[in-house]
């Protein structure tokens, strides 16, 4: 509290402001603050510290600070023994972003019509449909991915179906980017449908009618009325899908056959077989920095939109 504020209240008869520990909301919020502090913020500081530490010979690290972990993202010893620019990690980072972006886009394309459809149902059926969308969350993620392996793999559901339709026998759709993307879209879909549904539901139907009254055709109505009003839900869904997709390990390994590394598997390799914890932590920090940039960018755009009349 500033001095002027103190003077302003000094003359009045008000009781002294209670100490913060007399305040019920302090105690009420304490568990969540502790949870945030110890489970989210502290680990990030530990990772940041490890990324600056010196690696141990067989994993682990020593508190001896340097930037080797970060340097390694761009520059490494080549096969001739000289330090050279190595684009391999940038390639992995780019691939990861492309995969996460594709996942988000496909989810969006499917989620908007689904959410719109659900929001236009009578209340009872709506509840059932929303429940059905959340149903996959009741099953462990690894099982959901395995289910796709059974569907797409050799002698799986889809190849058998195609076989009965006259396609050649013994087909397999596993171990390629399409298989990875299928599983990723499937696991992420509810995270997109639910926020989009929430914002479409709040959409005032009379506004759509008004748009039609003003000779707006379907496309114009979608672009000028529905999309701007549901944008918060779409942005929330996109973030919920995109950010976890950046760290995906399971789908690329199991469905894609692990033939191309993603950032998740690269980080895992550094902490495991690579035994280079500081480098693994440095990549994790880089990933987080990129995510932060993405989030700040979206937040700024949202703020600018709010500011518009």
């Amino acid at each position: 509290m500033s001095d002027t504020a103190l003077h302003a209240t000094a003359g009045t008869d008000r009781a002294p402001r209670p100490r913060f520990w007399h305040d019920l909301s302090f105690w009420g919020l304490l568990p969540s603050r502790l949870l945030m502090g110890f489970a989210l913020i502290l680990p990030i500081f530990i990772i940041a510290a490890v990324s600056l530490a010196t690696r141990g010979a067989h994993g682990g690290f020593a508190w001896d600070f340097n930037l080797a972990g970060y340097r390694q993202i761009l520059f490494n010893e080549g096969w001739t023994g000289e330090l050279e620019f190595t684009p391999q990690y940038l390639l992995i980072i780019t691939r990861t972003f492309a995969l996460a972006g594709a996942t988000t886009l496909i989810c969006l394309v499917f989620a908007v019509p689904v959410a719109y459809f659900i929001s236009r149902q009578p209340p009872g059926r709506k509840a059932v449909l929303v429940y059905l969308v959340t149903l996959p969350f009741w099953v462990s993620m690894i099982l959901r991915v395995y289910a796709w392996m059974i569907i797409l793999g050799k002698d799986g559901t889809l190849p058998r179906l195609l076989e009965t339709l006259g396609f050649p026998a013994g087909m397999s759709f596993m171990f390629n980017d399409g298989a990875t993307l299928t599983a990723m879209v499937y696991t992420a879909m509810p995270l997109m449908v639910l926020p989009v549904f929430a914002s479409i539901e709040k959409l005032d139907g009379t506004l759509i009618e008004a748009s039609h009254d003003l000779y707006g055709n379907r496309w114009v109505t979608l672009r000028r009325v529905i999309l701007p009003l549901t944008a918060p839900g779409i942005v929330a869904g996109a973030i919920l899908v995109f950010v976890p997709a950046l760290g995906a390990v399971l789908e690329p390994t199991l469905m894609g056959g692990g033939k191309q590394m993603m950032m998740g598997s690269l980080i895992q390799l550094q902490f495991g077989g690579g035994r280079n914890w500081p480098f693994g932590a440095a990549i994790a920090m880089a990933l987080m920095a990129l995510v932060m940039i993405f989030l700040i960018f979206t937040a700024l755009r949202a703020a600018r939109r709010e500011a518009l009349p």
Partner: protein
Amino acid sequence: MKKYLAATALALCFSTAAQAEGQLNIYAWAESISPALIEKFSKENDVKVNVDSFTSNEDLLTKLQAGSSGYDIATPSQHFLRVMIDQDLIENFGASKLKAYENIEEKWRNQWWDETQDYSIPLAYGTAGFVVNTEQYKGPTDSFKYFFEPEGELKGKIALLSYPDEVIGAAQLYLGVPFCSEDQAEMKKVLDLLMAQKPSVAAYSSDNIASRLASGEVSAHFWWDGDSLRARKAGSPVSLAMTKEGLVGWMDSYVVPKGAPNRDNAVKFIEFMSTLENATEQMNFYSHSSPMKVVQEKVVNTKDTAPELYPEVPITFSRTCSAAAQDLVTRVWTQLLQ
């Protein structure tokens, strides 16, 4: 509100009290220790045994390095056991003075990974190489050439593990490069070999190997001897290739992580598993070779019924690499999958 808090506090007290009696927390390879023996031990000693499993030595090492794992027994392979001793991650539990030590076959005592044999008692050993589905592939398998430089029907039907550890070792055996080489030029040759093989590879995965191979999703998979034996006995048309360049060897041992909360029970369990009778039962369950003395008449997997476990080609055990050599391995693997 207070009532609920009191009830929760009470419940917490009870749950910790219930845990205070004899416990043993084991961290072992998935499905590696006979559940029947664990139950027997649990009943005889009134100890509650919890078993968690890991799927790679790297996972185990990372967990122990992170500290206070809460495990009383772990089962690393030889080259990781050495690291754990050097890094002071496991207890000296005086293994060489136990009865279990007397039951180790003489030739497996006091190896380079634990010269004094104070930190470990071995539990199983075996090899890693490539296994083929004999219905899909009928060609020769007497060399790693057919696996690393596949032609014809094996193209696109090959799978490796998701970790470099034994795979790089096998490539080194094929090329005649020593394990843990620090020579860049030599390791570049390993990378070139794996890069040339990559277009023929369907997957780099350590999960689900049995079904991938049995279903014919792939025709050749990098795998372990005992697993191949188990799959064959379960009716899968698989066969372990006896490659003339040799096979990659491994040996897993019981160790006690530093700060194990139930150290006495851990030692008791190791003694229990190492008696002639129990070592035999364990060997029959795990289907890998046993470095312990066993009751020969009761051994199920004999030379006639399980040739996988009795290779006549040389076996080279994985070594503990220096940081420089390990970096080269990681570099090969990252460039391969970049």
